[in-house]
Protein backbone atom coordinates (compact mmCIF):
# COMPACT_ATOMS: atom_id res chain seq x y z
CA UNK A 1 0.00 0.00 0.00
CA UNK A 2 1.17 3.48 -0.84
CA UNK A 3 0.72 4.62 2.75
CA UNK A 4 3.29 2.10 4.02
CA UNK A 5 5.75 3.03 1.27
CA UNK A 6 5.49 6.69 2.16
CA UNK A 7 5.72 5.92 5.88
CA UNK A 8 8.82 3.84 5.19
CA UNK A 9 10.39 6.80 3.41
CA UNK A 10 9.38 8.97 6.34
CA UNK A 11 11.11 6.63 8.81
CA UNK A 12 14.21 6.59 6.64
CA UNK A 13 14.48 10.36 7.06
CA UNK A 14 13.24 10.57 10.65
CA UNK A 15 15.80 8.00 11.82
CA UNK A 16 18.70 10.20 10.69
CA UNK A 17 20.72 11.26 13.74
CA UNK A 18 19.97 14.99 13.30
CA UNK A 19 16.21 14.48 13.23
CA UNK A 20 16.36 11.97 16.08
CA UNK A 21 18.17 14.61 18.11
CA UNK A 22 15.52 17.23 17.40
CA UNK A 23 12.75 14.78 18.22
CA UNK A 24 14.47 14.11 21.55
CA UNK A 25 14.92 17.84 22.22
CA UNK A 26 11.27 18.43 21.37
CA UNK A 27 9.81 15.71 23.60
CA UNK A 28 12.20 16.62 26.42
CA UNK A 29 11.24 20.29 26.23
CA UNK A 30 7.59 19.30 25.88
CA UNK A 31 7.70 17.19 29.03
CA UNK A 32 9.47 20.04 30.80
CA UNK A 33 6.81 22.50 29.61
CA UNK A 34 4.11 20.14 30.79
CA UNK A 35 5.75 19.61 34.18
CA UNK A 36 6.43 23.27 34.93
CA UNK A 37 3.32 25.06 36.12
CA UNK A 38 3.04 28.47 34.51
CA UNK A 39 4.18 27.46 31.05
CA UNK A 40 1.69 25.63 28.90
CA UNK A 41 2.31 23.97 25.50
CA UNK A 42 0.92 27.05 23.75
CA UNK A 43 3.46 29.40 25.33
CA UNK A 44 6.21 26.78 25.05
CA UNK A 45 5.74 26.38 21.29
CA UNK A 46 5.34 30.15 20.80
CA UNK A 47 8.58 30.93 22.67
CA UNK A 48 10.56 28.48 20.55
CA UNK A 49 9.18 29.29 17.09
CA UNK A 50 11.63 32.15 16.40
CA UNK A 51 14.50 29.92 17.45
CA UNK A 52 13.31 27.21 15.12
CA UNK A 53 13.38 29.51 12.07
CA UNK A 54 17.15 29.04 11.91
CA UNK A 55 16.75 25.28 11.62
CA UNK A 56 15.84 23.02 8.75
CA UNK A 57 12.00 23.19 8.44
CA UNK A 58 11.60 19.43 8.97
CA UNK A 59 13.81 19.51 12.08
CA UNK A 60 11.96 22.55 13.40
CA UNK A 61 8.52 20.98 12.94
CA UNK A 62 9.65 17.68 14.47
CA UNK A 63 10.89 19.61 17.50
CA UNK A 64 7.78 21.78 17.85
CA UNK A 65 5.39 18.84 17.37
CA UNK A 66 7.42 16.98 20.01
CA UNK A 67 6.85 19.86 22.42
CA UNK A 68 3.11 19.65 21.75
CA UNK A 69 2.51 15.98 22.44
CA UNK A 70 5.34 15.83 25.01
CA UNK A 71 3.60 18.46 27.11
CA UNK A 72 0.55 16.19 27.44
CA UNK A 73 2.80 13.60 29.11
CA UNK A 74 4.37 16.20 31.39
CA UNK A 75 1.07 17.79 32.43
CA UNK A 76 -0.08 14.61 34.11
CA UNK A 77 3.06 14.50 36.30
CA UNK A 78 2.21 17.65 38.23
CA UNK A 79 -1.48 16.71 38.21
CA UNK A 80 -0.68 13.46 40.03
CA UNK A 81 2.12 14.62 42.31
CA UNK A 82 0.97 18.04 43.44
CA UNK A 83 -2.67 18.26 42.31
CA UNK A 84 -1.69 21.00 39.86
CA UNK A 85 -2.55 20.04 36.31
CA UNK A 86 0.10 21.27 33.86
CA UNK A 87 -2.63 21.97 31.34
CA UNK A 88 -6.43 21.80 31.13
CA UNK A 89 -6.57 18.26 29.76
CA UNK A 90 -4.87 16.94 32.91
CA UNK A 91 -7.53 18.32 35.25
CA UNK A 92 -9.31 14.97 35.22
CA UNK A 93 -6.08 13.05 35.87
CA UNK A 94 -5.65 15.00 39.10
CA UNK A 95 -8.99 13.78 40.41
CA UNK A 96 -7.92 10.16 40.98
CA UNK A 97 -4.21 10.51 40.29
CA UNK A 98 -3.56 12.83 43.21
CA UNK A 99 -5.58 10.57 45.52
CA UNK A 100 -3.42 7.64 44.42
CA UNK A 101 -0.33 9.72 45.21
CA UNK A 102 -1.64 10.46 48.68
CA UNK A 103 -2.03 6.72 49.21
CA UNK A 104 1.62 6.18 48.29
CA UNK A 105 0.75 4.92 44.80
CA UNK A 106 2.11 7.87 42.81
CA UNK A 107 4.50 5.59 40.96
CA UNK A 108 1.67 3.40 39.68
CA UNK A 109 -0.37 6.41 38.62
CA UNK A 110 2.55 8.03 36.81
CA UNK A 111 3.59 4.88 35.00
CA UNK A 112 0.05 3.99 33.93
CA UNK A 113 -0.39 7.57 32.72
CA UNK A 114 2.82 7.22 30.71
CA UNK A 115 1.88 3.80 29.30
CA UNK A 116 -1.64 4.95 28.46
CA UNK A 117 -0.25 8.04 26.75
CA UNK A 118 2.19 5.93 24.75
CA UNK A 119 -0.48 3.47 23.56
CA UNK A 120 -2.94 6.25 22.70
CA UNK A 121 -0.30 8.35 21.00
CA UNK A 122 0.92 5.41 18.91
CA UNK A 123 -2.58 4.25 17.93
CA UNK A 124 -3.46 7.87 17.17
CA UNK A 125 -0.53 8.19 14.78
CA UNK A 126 -1.74 5.01 13.02
CA UNK A 127 -5.15 6.64 12.63
CA UNK A 128 -3.51 9.84 11.36
CA UNK A 129 -1.53 7.82 8.84
CA UNK A 130 -4.65 6.24 7.29
CA UNK A 131 -7.14 9.11 7.56
CA UNK A 132 -5.02 12.06 6.52
CA UNK A 133 -4.09 11.13 2.92
CA UNK A 134 -7.64 10.46 1.63
CA UNK A 135 -8.86 13.62 3.34
CA UNK A 136 -6.06 15.59 1.71
CA UNK A 137 -6.88 14.10 -1.71
CA UNK A 138 -10.52 15.14 -1.35
CA UNK A 139 -9.43 18.65 -0.47
CA UNK A 140 -7.25 19.03 -3.61
CA UNK A 141 -10.21 20.36 -5.55
CA UNK A 142 -10.56 23.31 -3.17
CA UNK A 143 -10.86 26.81 -4.58
CA UNK A 144 -11.37 30.15 -2.80
CA UNK A 145 -15.04 29.40 -1.92
CA UNK A 146 -14.04 26.11 -0.33
CA UNK A 147 -11.22 27.79 1.58
CA UNK A 148 -13.61 30.45 2.79
CA UNK A 149 -16.01 27.78 4.08
CA UNK A 150 -13.06 25.93 5.62
CA UNK A 151 -11.80 29.02 7.44
CA UNK A 152 -15.35 29.69 8.60
CA UNK A 153 -15.44 26.12 9.92
CA UNK A 154 -12.19 26.79 11.73
CA UNK A 155 -13.54 30.01 13.23
CA UNK A 156 -16.59 28.18 14.62
CA UNK A 157 -14.21 26.58 17.10
CA UNK A 158 -14.24 29.83 19.05
CA UNK A 159 -17.64 28.88 20.41
CA UNK A 160 -16.25 25.91 22.29
CA UNK A 161 -13.17 27.91 23.29
CA UNK A 162 -15.30 30.80 24.57
CA UNK A 163 -15.49 29.57 28.16
CA UNK A 164 -18.43 30.46 30.39
CA UNK A 165 -19.52 33.60 28.54
CA UNK A 166 -20.17 33.30 24.81
CA UNK A 167 -20.25 37.10 24.45
CA UNK A 168 -16.76 37.41 25.94
CA UNK A 169 -15.45 34.62 23.74
CA UNK A 170 -16.80 36.37 20.68
CA UNK A 171 -15.27 39.67 21.84
CA UNK A 172 -11.94 37.88 22.00
CA UNK A 173 -12.39 36.38 18.53
CA UNK A 174 -13.45 39.65 16.90
CA UNK A 175 -10.51 41.38 18.61
CA UNK A 176 -8.23 38.78 17.03
CA UNK A 177 -9.77 39.43 13.62
CA UNK A 178 -9.26 43.17 14.05
CA UNK A 179 -5.64 42.75 15.10
CA UNK A 180 -5.06 40.59 12.01
CA UNK A 181 -6.31 43.46 9.84
CA UNK A 182 -3.62 45.89 11.02
CA UNK A 183 -1.02 46.49 8.34
CA UNK A 184 -1.27 46.39 4.55
CA UNK A 185 -4.44 45.20 2.85
CA UNK A 186 -3.52 41.87 1.18
CA UNK A 187 -5.24 42.67 -2.12
CA UNK A 188 -5.05 46.45 -2.57
CA UNK A 189 -1.83 47.00 -0.59
CA UNK A 190 -3.28 50.03 1.18
CA UNK A 191 -2.48 50.58 4.87
CA UNK A 192 -5.16 49.76 7.43
CA UNK A 193 -5.11 51.01 11.03
CA UNK A 194 -1.40 51.87 10.86
CA UNK A 195 -1.81 55.54 11.95
CA UNK A 196 1.23 56.50 9.81
CA UNK A 197 3.48 54.30 11.96
CA UNK A 198 6.17 52.47 10.01
CA UNK A 199 6.35 49.62 12.52
CA UNK A 200 2.66 48.85 12.08
CA UNK A 201 2.90 48.49 8.29
CA UNK A 202 4.11 44.94 8.85
CA UNK A 203 1.21 44.22 11.15
CA UNK A 204 1.38 42.81 14.64
CA UNK A 205 3.20 39.51 14.68
CA UNK A 206 1.21 36.66 16.15
CA UNK A 207 4.21 35.43 18.19
CA UNK A 208 4.18 38.70 20.15
CA UNK A 209 0.47 38.30 20.80
CA UNK A 210 0.75 34.67 21.89
CA UNK A 211 3.82 35.18 24.09
CA UNK A 212 2.16 38.17 25.71
CA UNK A 213 -1.23 36.56 26.22
CA UNK A 214 -0.01 33.20 27.46
CA UNK A 215 3.50 33.53 28.88
CA UNK A 216 3.82 37.07 30.22
CA UNK A 217 0.26 37.35 31.54
CA UNK A 218 0.65 33.97 33.30
CA UNK A 219 3.72 35.31 35.12
CA UNK A 220 1.81 38.44 36.14
CA UNK A 221 -0.92 36.24 37.61
CA UNK A 222 1.69 34.23 39.45
CA UNK A 223 3.21 37.42 40.83
CA UNK A 224 -0.18 38.53 42.08
CA UNK A 225 -0.87 35.20 43.74
CA UNK A 226 2.58 35.14 45.34
CA UNK A 227 3.16 31.68 43.92
CA UNK A 228 6.05 30.13 45.83
CA UNK A 229 7.31 26.60 45.51
CA UNK A 230 5.27 23.46 45.68
CA UNK A 231 5.10 20.58 48.11
CA UNK A 232 5.17 17.14 46.52
CA UNK A 233 4.15 13.77 47.80
CA UNK A 234 7.00 11.34 48.33
CA UNK A 235 7.53 8.99 45.42
CA UNK A 236 7.71 5.31 46.37
CA UNK A 237 8.52 3.04 43.41
CA UNK A 238 7.56 3.75 39.81
CA UNK A 239 6.34 0.47 38.36
CA UNK A 240 2.65 -0.49 38.23
CA UNK A 241 1.37 -3.72 39.74
CA UNK A 242 0.07 -6.52 37.55
CA UNK A 243 -3.43 -5.75 38.78
CA UNK A 244 -3.06 -2.06 37.78
CA UNK A 245 -1.97 -3.12 34.29
CA UNK A 246 -4.88 -5.54 33.93
CA UNK A 247 -7.45 -2.99 35.07
CA UNK A 248 -5.98 -0.26 32.84
CA UNK A 249 -5.94 -2.15 29.54
CA UNK A 250 -9.53 -1.62 28.42
CA UNK A 251 -9.77 1.99 29.65
CA UNK A 252 -6.60 2.82 27.73
CA UNK A 253 -7.96 1.29 24.50
CA UNK A 254 -11.36 2.96 24.91
CA UNK A 255 -9.76 6.30 25.79
CA UNK A 256 -7.44 6.11 22.77
CA UNK A 257 -10.33 5.64 20.34
CA UNK A 258 -12.55 8.23 21.99
CA UNK A 259 -9.76 10.81 22.19
CA UNK A 260 -8.65 10.31 18.59
CA UNK A 261 -12.08 10.71 17.02
CA UNK A 262 -13.05 13.63 19.23
CA UNK A 263 -9.68 15.25 18.61
CA UNK A 264 -10.39 15.37 14.88
CA UNK A 265 -13.53 17.43 15.37
CA UNK A 266 -13.11 21.17 15.36
CA UNK A 267 -14.89 22.38 18.46
CA UNK A 268 -13.99 19.65 20.91
CA UNK A 269 -12.00 20.86 23.93
CA UNK A 270 -9.29 18.72 25.51
CA UNK A 271 -10.81 19.02 28.98
CA UNK A 272 -14.17 17.74 27.71
CA UNK A 273 -12.47 14.83 25.90
CA UNK A 274 -10.81 13.74 29.13
CA UNK A 275 -14.03 14.16 31.09
CA UNK A 276 -16.02 12.15 28.58
CA UNK A 277 -13.52 9.33 28.97
CA UNK A 278 -13.69 9.58 32.78
CA UNK A 279 -17.48 9.54 32.59
CA UNK A 280 -17.42 6.50 30.29
CA UNK A 281 -15.10 4.54 32.57
CA UNK A 282 -17.19 5.42 35.60
CA UNK A 283 -20.36 4.22 33.85
CA UNK A 284 -18.70 0.96 32.79
CA UNK A 285 -17.03 0.31 36.12
CA UNK A 286 -18.30 -2.27 38.65
CA UNK A 287 -17.56 0.19 41.45
CA UNK A 288 -18.38 3.70 40.15
CA UNK A 289 -18.71 5.07 43.68
CA UNK A 290 -14.96 4.62 44.14
CA UNK A 291 -14.10 7.07 41.36
CA UNK A 292 -12.47 10.14 42.90
CA UNK A 293 -10.86 8.15 45.71
CA UNK A 294 -7.83 6.90 43.77
CA UNK A 295 -9.00 4.45 41.10
CA UNK A 296 -6.51 3.53 38.37
CA UNK A 297 -9.18 3.52 35.66
CA UNK A 298 -9.78 7.20 36.43
CA UNK A 299 -6.20 7.91 35.36
CA UNK A 300 -5.75 5.41 32.53
CA UNK A 301 -8.79 6.30 30.41
CA UNK A 302 -8.55 10.13 30.54
CA UNK A 303 -4.79 10.16 29.96
CA UNK A 304 -5.21 7.93 26.93
CA UNK A 305 -8.08 10.11 25.65
CA UNK A 306 -6.04 13.26 26.14
CA UNK A 307 -3.11 11.86 24.15
CA UNK A 308 -5.31 10.24 21.51
CA UNK A 309 -6.74 13.69 20.91
CA UNK A 310 -3.28 15.13 20.21
CA UNK A 311 -2.85 12.78 17.25
CA UNK A 312 -6.47 13.27 16.21
CA UNK A 313 -5.98 17.03 16.23
CA UNK A 314 -3.12 16.70 13.76
CA UNK A 315 -5.55 15.32 11.12
CA UNK A 316 -7.47 18.56 10.43
CA UNK A 317 -4.29 20.58 10.99
CA UNK A 318 -2.22 18.78 8.38
CA UNK A 319 -4.95 18.03 5.83
CA UNK A 320 -7.12 21.13 6.03
CA UNK A 321 -5.01 23.69 7.85
CA UNK A 322 -7.59 23.93 10.64
CA UNK A 323 -6.23 23.84 14.19
CA UNK A 324 -8.81 22.37 16.60
CA UNK A 325 -7.06 23.64 19.74
CA UNK A 326 -4.85 26.47 21.03
CA UNK A 327 -1.47 24.70 20.89
CA UNK A 328 -2.29 23.51 17.37
CA UNK A 329 -3.28 27.05 16.41
CA UNK A 330 0.20 28.17 17.42
CA UNK A 331 1.71 25.15 15.67
CA UNK A 332 -0.15 26.22 12.53
CA UNK A 333 1.50 29.61 12.92
CA UNK A 334 4.84 27.82 13.18
CA UNK A 335 4.18 25.96 9.94
CA UNK A 336 3.46 29.26 8.19
CA UNK A 337 6.53 31.00 9.64
CA UNK A 338 8.65 28.09 8.37
CA UNK A 339 7.17 28.44 4.90
CA UNK A 340 5.08 25.27 5.09
CA UNK A 341 1.39 25.62 4.27
CA UNK A 342 -0.75 22.90 5.92
CA UNK A 343 -3.69 21.88 3.82
CA UNK A 344 -4.57 19.55 0.98
CA UNK A 345 -1.45 20.33 -1.04
CA UNK A 346 0.86 19.41 1.81
CA UNK A 347 0.53 15.69 1.11
CA UNK A 348 1.42 16.17 -2.55
CA UNK A 349 3.84 19.10 -2.63
CA UNK A 350 5.72 18.27 0.56
CA UNK A 351 4.99 14.59 1.08
CA UNK A 352 8.50 13.93 2.40
CA UNK A 353 8.08 16.54 5.13
CA UNK A 354 4.69 15.37 6.33
CA UNK A 355 5.56 11.66 6.33
CA UNK A 356 8.81 12.38 8.14
CA UNK A 357 6.78 14.30 10.72
CA UNK A 358 4.35 11.37 11.11
CA UNK A 359 7.23 8.90 11.43
CA UNK A 360 8.89 11.14 14.02
CA UNK A 361 5.67 11.07 16.06
CA UNK A 362 5.98 7.27 16.36
CA UNK A 363 9.60 7.69 17.44
CA UNK A 364 8.70 10.54 19.78
CA UNK A 365 6.12 8.40 21.58
CA UNK A 366 8.77 5.76 22.29
CA UNK A 367 11.16 8.44 23.52
CA UNK A 368 8.47 9.83 25.81
CA UNK A 369 7.84 6.44 27.38
CA UNK A 370 11.56 6.08 28.06
CA UNK A 371 11.84 9.66 29.37
CA UNK A 372 8.80 9.53 31.59
CA UNK A 373 9.15 6.19 33.32
CA UNK A 374 12.69 6.10 34.71
CA UNK A 375 13.05 9.86 34.97
CA UNK A 376 9.81 10.52 36.82
CA UNK A 377 11.73 11.33 40.01
CA UNK A 378 13.68 14.01 38.20
CA UNK A 379 10.54 15.57 36.73
CA UNK A 380 9.00 15.63 40.19
CA UNK A 381 12.01 17.63 41.48
CA UNK A 382 11.81 20.10 38.58
CA UNK A 383 8.22 20.88 39.46
CA UNK A 384 9.60 22.30 42.71
CA UNK A 385 11.56 25.12 41.01
CA UNK A 386 10.50 28.21 42.96
CA UNK A 387 8.28 30.58 41.04
CA UNK A 388 10.46 33.60 41.99
CA UNK A 389 13.20 32.03 39.85
CA UNK A 390 10.97 30.54 37.15
CA UNK A 391 8.83 33.65 36.61
CA UNK A 392 11.63 36.11 35.72
CA UNK A 393 13.22 33.40 33.56
CA UNK A 394 10.01 33.12 31.53
CA UNK A 395 9.93 36.91 31.13
CA UNK A 396 13.51 36.97 29.88
CA UNK A 397 12.76 34.08 27.51
CA UNK A 398 9.82 36.10 26.19
CA UNK A 399 12.21 38.82 25.06
CA UNK A 400 14.36 36.25 23.24
CA UNK A 401 11.35 34.65 21.65
CA UNK A 402 9.71 37.80 20.37
CA UNK A 403 12.88 39.63 19.29
CA UNK A 404 13.93 36.67 17.19
CA UNK A 405 10.87 36.89 14.90
CA UNK A 406 11.84 40.03 12.97
CA UNK A 407 14.90 41.27 14.91
CA UNK A 408 12.72 44.09 16.12
CA UNK A 409 12.26 45.56 19.60
CA UNK A 410 8.78 46.65 18.44
CA UNK A 411 7.70 43.01 18.64
CA UNK A 412 9.06 42.82 22.20
CA UNK A 413 7.05 45.89 23.17
CA UNK A 414 3.96 44.38 21.56
CA UNK A 415 4.46 41.23 23.64
CA UNK A 416 4.64 43.35 26.77
CA UNK A 417 1.46 45.21 25.77
CA UNK A 418 -0.35 41.96 25.14
CA UNK A 419 0.97 40.60 28.41
CA UNK A 420 -0.83 43.41 30.19
CA UNK A 421 -3.88 42.96 27.96
CA UNK A 422 -3.85 39.22 28.68
CA UNK A 423 -3.70 39.86 32.42
CA UNK A 424 -6.66 42.26 32.20
CA UNK A 425 -8.56 39.84 29.96
CA UNK A 426 -8.08 37.14 32.58
CA UNK A 427 -9.37 39.47 35.25
CA UNK A 428 -12.60 40.23 33.40
CA UNK A 429 -13.03 36.65 32.19
CA UNK A 430 -12.27 37.09 28.48
CA UNK A 431 -10.49 33.99 27.11
CA UNK A 432 -7.31 34.46 25.06
CA UNK A 433 -7.51 31.42 22.80
CA UNK A 434 -10.30 32.69 20.49
CA UNK A 435 -8.22 35.80 19.87
CA UNK A 436 -5.23 33.73 18.78
CA UNK A 437 -7.33 31.48 16.57
CA UNK A 438 -8.98 34.43 14.84
CA UNK A 439 -5.62 36.19 14.48
CA UNK A 440 -4.22 33.26 12.55
CA UNK A 441 -7.27 32.33 10.48
CA UNK A 442 -8.48 35.90 9.92
CA UNK A 443 -6.20 36.87 7.01
CA UNK A 444 -6.90 33.61 5.16
CA UNK A 445 -10.63 33.99 5.83
CA UNK A 446 -10.70 37.54 4.42
CA UNK A 447 -8.56 36.69 1.42
CA UNK A 448 -10.74 33.67 0.52
CA UNK A 449 -13.95 35.69 0.92
CA UNK A 450 -12.74 38.52 -1.30
CA UNK A 451 -11.30 36.19 -3.93
CA UNK A 452 -14.55 34.20 -4.03
CA UNK A 453 -16.67 37.30 -4.51
CA UNK A 454 -14.27 38.58 -7.15
CA UNK A 455 -14.74 35.30 -9.05
CA UNK A 456 -18.53 35.50 -8.75
CA UNK A 457 -18.61 39.29 -9.37
CA UNK A 458 -20.24 39.89 -6.03
CA UNK A 459 -22.82 37.08 -6.15
CA UNK A 460 -23.21 35.04 -2.95
CA UNK A 461 -24.56 32.10 -4.99
CA UNK A 462 -20.98 30.87 -5.39
CA UNK A 463 -21.12 29.58 -1.81
CA UNK A 464 -24.17 27.37 -2.40
CA UNK A 465 -23.62 26.28 -5.99
CA UNK A 466 -20.46 24.34 -5.24
CA UNK A 467 -21.20 21.03 -3.42
CA UNK A 468 -17.96 20.97 -1.41
CA UNK A 469 -18.49 24.55 -0.24
CA UNK A 470 -22.07 23.85 0.72
CA UNK A 471 -21.00 20.70 2.53
CA UNK A 472 -18.37 22.61 4.51
CA UNK A 473 -20.87 25.34 5.39
CA UNK A 474 -23.25 22.65 6.66
CA UNK A 475 -20.35 21.16 8.62
CA UNK A 476 -19.67 24.61 10.05
CA UNK A 477 -23.30 24.81 11.16
CA UNK A 478 -22.93 21.33 12.68
CA UNK A 479 -19.73 22.39 14.41
CA UNK A 480 -21.58 25.32 15.95
CA UNK A 481 -24.31 22.96 17.17
CA UNK A 482 -21.75 20.49 18.56
CA UNK A 483 -19.79 23.27 20.21
CA UNK A 484 -22.93 24.68 21.79
CA UNK A 485 -23.80 21.19 23.04
CA UNK A 486 -20.27 20.82 24.48
CA UNK A 487 -20.63 24.22 26.15
CA UNK A 488 -23.89 23.12 27.76
CA UNK A 489 -22.16 19.99 29.03
CA UNK A 490 -19.21 22.03 30.32
CA UNK A 491 -21.70 24.40 31.92
CA UNK A 492 -23.21 21.49 33.84
CA UNK A 493 -19.71 20.40 34.94
CA UNK A 494 -18.85 23.97 36.00
CA UNK A 495 -22.11 24.40 37.89
CA UNK A 496 -21.53 21.12 39.72
CA UNK A 497 -18.12 22.45 40.82
CA UNK A 498 -16.16 19.67 39.15
CA UNK A 499 -14.55 22.03 36.63
CA UNK A 500 -13.50 25.61 37.18
CA UNK A 501 -14.37 28.15 34.51
CA UNK A 502 -10.66 28.60 33.82
CA UNK A 503 -10.25 24.89 33.09
CA UNK A 504 -12.19 24.96 29.82
Amino acid sequence: MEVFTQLGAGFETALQPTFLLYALIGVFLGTLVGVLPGIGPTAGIALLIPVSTGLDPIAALIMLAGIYYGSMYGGSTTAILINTPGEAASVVTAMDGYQMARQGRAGSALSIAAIGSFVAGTLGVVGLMFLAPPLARAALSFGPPEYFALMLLGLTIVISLAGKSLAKGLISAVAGLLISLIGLDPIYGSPRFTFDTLSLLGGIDFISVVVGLFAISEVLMGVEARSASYVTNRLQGIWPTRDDLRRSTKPILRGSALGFFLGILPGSSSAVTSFLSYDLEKKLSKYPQKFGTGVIEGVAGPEAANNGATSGGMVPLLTLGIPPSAPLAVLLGAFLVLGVRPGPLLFTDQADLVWTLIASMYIGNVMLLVLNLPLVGMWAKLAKIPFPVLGPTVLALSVIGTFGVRNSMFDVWMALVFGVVGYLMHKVGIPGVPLVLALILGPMFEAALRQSLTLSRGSLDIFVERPMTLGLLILAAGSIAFSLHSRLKEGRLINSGVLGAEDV
Partner: protein
Amino acid sequence: MQRADRITGIITLLLGAWVALLSTDMQLLSDGVPGPGLLPLICGVVFVGLGLALLLKPTEAVTPAPWPKPQDGGRVLGTMASMAIFTLLVPILGFPVSAALFLSAMIWWWADYSPWLAALFGVVLALTMMLVFQVLLNAPLPEGLWQ
Protein backbone atom coordinates in the same frame (compact mmCIF):
# COMPACT_ATOMS: atom_id res chain seq x y z
CA MET B 1 -17.93 41.10 38.35
CA GLN B 2 -21.01 42.86 37.01
CA ARG B 3 -19.27 46.22 37.25
CA ALA B 4 -16.23 44.83 35.47
CA ASP B 5 -18.50 43.47 32.75
CA ARG B 6 -20.21 46.81 32.34
CA ILE B 7 -16.88 48.60 32.01
CA THR B 8 -15.74 45.95 29.52
CA GLY B 9 -19.00 46.44 27.64
CA ILE B 10 -18.52 50.20 27.42
CA ILE B 11 -14.92 49.84 26.26
CA THR B 12 -15.94 47.26 23.65
CA LEU B 13 -18.79 49.44 22.43
CA LEU B 14 -16.59 52.54 22.11
CA LEU B 15 -13.80 50.58 20.43
CA GLY B 16 -16.25 49.06 17.99
CA ALA B 17 -17.75 52.42 17.13
CA TRP B 18 -14.28 53.89 16.56
CA VAL B 19 -13.21 50.99 14.31
CA ALA B 20 -16.46 51.23 12.32
CA LEU B 21 -15.95 54.97 11.87
CA LEU B 22 -12.36 54.53 10.67
CA SER B 23 -13.50 51.79 8.29
CA THR B 24 -15.86 54.13 6.48
CA ASP B 25 -12.81 56.07 5.24
CA MET B 26 -11.72 52.95 3.34
CA GLN B 27 -13.33 51.41 0.27
CA LEU B 28 -16.18 49.16 1.37
CA LEU B 29 -17.51 47.62 -1.81
CA SER B 30 -16.64 47.75 -5.48
CA ASP B 31 -19.07 46.02 -7.89
CA GLY B 32 -20.14 43.74 -5.07
CA VAL B 33 -16.57 42.79 -4.16
CA PRO B 34 -15.50 43.65 -0.60
CA GLY B 35 -12.84 46.32 -0.28
CA PRO B 36 -10.35 46.87 2.53
CA GLY B 37 -12.93 48.52 4.75
CA LEU B 38 -15.76 45.96 4.73
CA LEU B 39 -14.47 43.35 7.17
CA PRO B 40 -13.25 45.99 9.66
CA LEU B 41 -16.67 47.64 9.43
CA ILE B 42 -18.43 44.34 10.13
CA CYS B 43 -16.05 43.64 13.03
CA GLY B 44 -16.65 47.13 14.41
CA VAL B 45 -20.43 46.74 14.25
CA VAL B 46 -20.26 43.27 15.86
CA PHE B 47 -18.05 44.74 18.58
CA VAL B 48 -20.67 47.42 19.26
CA GLY B 49 -23.34 44.69 19.50
CA LEU B 50 -21.25 42.54 21.85
CA GLY B 51 -20.42 45.57 23.98
CA LEU B 52 -24.12 46.36 24.27
CA ALA B 53 -24.88 42.74 25.14
CA LEU B 54 -22.35 42.77 27.94
CA LEU B 55 -23.53 46.16 29.16
CA LEU B 56 -27.17 45.14 29.28
CA LYS B 57 -26.66 41.58 30.53
CA PRO B 58 -23.43 41.25 32.50
CA THR B 59 -22.23 37.82 33.59
CA GLU B 60 -23.89 36.69 36.76
CA ALA B 61 -21.28 34.21 37.96
CA VAL B 62 -18.55 35.26 40.35
CA THR B 63 -15.29 35.79 38.53
CA PRO B 64 -12.63 33.15 39.21
CA ALA B 65 -10.01 35.93 39.17
CA PRO B 66 -10.94 38.70 41.63
CA TRP B 67 -9.12 42.02 41.41
CA PRO B 68 -5.90 42.08 43.47
CA LYS B 69 -5.52 43.65 46.88
CA PRO B 70 -3.39 46.83 46.87
CA GLN B 71 -0.23 45.03 48.00
CA ASP B 72 -0.60 42.30 45.37
CA GLY B 73 -1.58 44.83 42.71
CA GLY B 74 1.53 46.83 43.55
CA ARG B 75 3.66 43.76 42.83
CA VAL B 76 1.97 43.29 39.49
CA LEU B 77 2.44 46.94 38.54
CA GLY B 78 6.03 46.79 39.72
CA THR B 79 6.63 43.75 37.54
CA MET B 80 5.12 45.51 34.51
CA ALA B 81 7.33 48.54 35.16
CA SER B 82 10.41 46.34 35.60
CA MET B 83 9.65 44.57 32.36
CA ALA B 84 9.30 47.94 30.59
CA ILE B 85 12.65 49.13 31.99
CA PHE B 86 14.25 45.83 30.92
CA THR B 87 12.87 46.27 27.40
CA LEU B 88 14.22 49.86 27.30
CA LEU B 89 17.67 48.74 28.43
CA VAL B 90 18.03 45.79 26.03
CA PRO B 91 18.86 47.84 22.90
CA ILE B 92 21.34 49.93 24.94
CA LEU B 93 23.13 47.37 27.10
CA GLY B 94 22.42 44.30 25.01
CA PHE B 95 20.49 41.23 26.10
CA PRO B 96 23.05 39.43 28.33
CA VAL B 97 23.80 42.45 30.57
CA SER B 98 20.17 43.64 30.70
CA ALA B 99 18.93 40.13 31.43
CA ALA B 100 21.47 39.62 34.20
CA LEU B 101 20.41 42.89 35.84
CA PHE B 102 16.69 42.18 35.37
CA LEU B 103 16.83 38.57 36.60
CA SER B 104 18.96 39.49 39.61
CA ALA B 105 16.64 42.33 40.58
CA MET B 106 13.46 40.30 40.16
CA ILE B 107 14.76 37.22 42.00
CA TRP B 108 16.02 39.40 44.84
CA TRP B 109 12.65 41.18 45.07
CA TRP B 110 10.40 38.11 44.78
CA ALA B 111 12.45 35.46 46.53
CA ASP B 112 13.90 37.38 49.46
CA TYR B 113 17.32 35.90 48.70
CA SER B 114 20.45 37.82 49.67
CA PRO B 115 21.58 40.29 46.96
CA TRP B 116 24.68 38.19 46.24
CA LEU B 117 22.69 34.97 45.78
CA ALA B 118 20.14 36.73 43.60
CA ALA B 119 22.94 38.25 41.52
CA LEU B 120 24.55 34.84 41.14
CA PHE B 121 21.27 33.32 39.93
CA GLY B 122 20.73 36.25 37.57
CA VAL B 123 24.16 36.09 35.99
CA VAL B 124 24.14 32.29 35.64
CA LEU B 125 20.66 32.28 34.07
CA ALA B 126 21.52 35.11 31.66
CA LEU B 127 24.74 33.41 30.59
CA THR B 128 22.94 30.08 30.17
CA MET B 129 20.32 31.70 27.94
CA MET B 130 23.01 33.38 25.87
CA LEU B 131 24.87 30.09 25.50
CA VAL B 132 21.81 28.05 24.59
CA PHE B 133 20.11 30.51 22.26
CA GLN B 134 22.85 32.61 20.72
CA VAL B 135 25.69 30.11 20.61
CA LEU B 136 23.99 26.71 20.27
CA LEU B 137 20.76 27.61 18.47
CA ASN B 138 22.08 30.62 16.51
CA ALA B 139 19.12 32.75 17.55
CA PRO B 140 19.60 36.52 17.24
CA LEU B 141 19.90 38.43 20.51
CA PRO B 142 20.12 42.21 20.79
CA GLU B 143 23.73 43.23 21.35
CA GLY B 144 23.11 46.89 22.22
CA LEU B 145 25.91 49.41 22.14
CA TRP B 146 28.53 46.66 22.38
CA GLN B 147 27.83 45.82 18.72
